């Protein structure tokens, strides 16, 4: 074979190959459908019991409660969807195939992350009939629905990136979901520290919290650039950590 006939594939093509395969796995596998079904089922139940409830509420509050409930359920979904991304490759011995390909570790991690996130986005978007019911029967704006879903997608990206990192450092999927879940819980609960710590350190904790300050505006229909940047930063940070973890494998046994 001559050098002219082979080259490093474009990053986009390589990413596309892995994303296509991974999405195929999610859509063909039982586990993908089980996770999606459970997320939608629990979201639907919470919508009826918590968001709609029996007491009278403003439509905007019902919608905000729906996004609050959906965000909690979706985080579980993201953690379980992402646990397999790298850990499964390691368990099944297929990681050398990816590491021996013409893709960088960063591209492999990005492709894996994108596949889980795209599946998550599809899964979350299916729940849109619930906000649309509120839209039809109550008084909420499309902008509020859009804002809530943007928040869900961004929060989902952050939790998926955390799960990808867990999967990159763990030897098994169970350990991966425990690591990803633990980091997510710590980042969720850090707002509690913000309430007991005074001064600028308390502010830092408050700003770090995954849900409290940054998701609440989305669920109330407000889109703010700092909140978008926060979720993008968390996503990028954990993807870089995952890439570094994968790269370090080339130096260790």
């Amino acid at each position, binding site marked *: 074979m001559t050098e002219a006939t082979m080259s*490093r594939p474009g990053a986009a093509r390589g990413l596309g190959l*892995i994303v296509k395969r991974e999405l195929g796995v999610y859509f063909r596998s039982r586990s993908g459908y089980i996770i999606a079904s459970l997320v939608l089922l629990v979201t639907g139940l919470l919508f009826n019991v918590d968001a709609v409830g029996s007491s009278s509420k403003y439509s905007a509050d019902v919608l905000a409660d729906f996004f609050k409930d959906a965000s909690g359920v979706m985080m579980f979904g993201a953690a379980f969807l992402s646990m397999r991304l790298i850990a499964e490759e390691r368990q099944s011995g*297929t990681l050398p195939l990816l590491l021996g390909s013409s893709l960088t570790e960063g591209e492999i991690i990005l492709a894996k992350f994108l596949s889980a996130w795209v599946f998550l986005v599809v899964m979350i978007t299916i729940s849109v009939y619930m906000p649309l019911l509120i839209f039809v029967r109550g008084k909420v704006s499309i902008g509020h629905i859009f804002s809530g879903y943007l928040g869900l997608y961004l929060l989902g990206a952050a939790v998926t990136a955390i799960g990808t990192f867990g999967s990159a450092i763990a030897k098994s999927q169970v350990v991966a979901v425990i690591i990803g879940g633990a980091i997510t819980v710590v980042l969720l609960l850090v707002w509690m520290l913000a309430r007991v710590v005074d001064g600028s350190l308390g502010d830092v904790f408050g700003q770090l919290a995954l849900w409290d300050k940054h998701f609440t505006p989305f669920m109330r229909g407000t889109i703010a650039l700092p909140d978008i940047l926060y979720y993008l930063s968390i996503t990028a940070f954990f993807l870089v950590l995952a890439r570094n973890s994968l790269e370090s494998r080339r130096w260790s*046994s």
Partner: protein
Amino acid sequence: MIRAEALTKFYEHKCVVRDLSFSIQEREIVGFLGLNGAGKTTTLRMLAGLLMPSSGRIEIDGHDLLEKPLEMRWRIGFLPERPPLYEDMSVRGFLAFSAQLRGMDDTKAARRVGEVLETTALSEYADAPISTLSHGFRQRVGIAQAIVHDPALVILDEPINGLDPAQIVEMRKLIRSLRERHTVLLSSHNLTEISASCDRLLVIKDGNLVDEGTEATLSAKHGGARRAVMVTLIGNRKAIEGKLTQSALITGFEVRADNDGVVDVRIDITEPKPESLARELIEAGFGLRRLEPVTSELESTFLRLTGAKS
């Protein structure tokens, strides 16, 4: 041509491969021999670009693997000890995916997959899910993914592990056929097989290259083989021991069992052919029920080079 220069690998403070240098000519099939923990797999993984050496240089067709690892990966095909297979995919789908992942466009990948299916005798199973294949066929798919992108160097780590005798014969033919397009470096625990499949052997011990050459040159260089036979004799144990002690054909022996006059003995012999020993034992009046070699020449040489005990 593949050249490894002063390859060294530390895992934390433990040196697994030390100052290892060798070269492999184009279209040569070279076997990597060594005991477990000798550094074979570490070396193969470094050559495959999956592991970075602590120091040293790897050159493939004049290009430095460590300087441009991404650009070099398509020149290498690697079959790890456990074949990397996506079991949910069909053989054809998996091979096409593997080829595209290494930079082949769709058209070339489809053509090359067809060729590789022929080479590895997998055409009949092309559309079968990999999960339904037997161990032997999975191993073939593993080799197919290592060659599908037409690399210059094919590295096979224990390719005959777990295969039955018939599959080993088929695998030997397949490995020999790879030389038409590739340089092959393989490791194996099966000494007979590695000798039959390879043009040349590299013997590694404690991460160092102990020696290299053909089986014949290695055996000659290291003072010939130490040969041993297992013998089952009918007779009195003391008489047998007395005879064996006096025989000039024997350098040592060990009685392994004595069941009412049926005596199993392991005997180290000086001559390459054990017929003389058989004749001498029969002429001494013992019944000879069994005589079989227990070490091949390669095994003897290997044991001597690696310092292992038989």
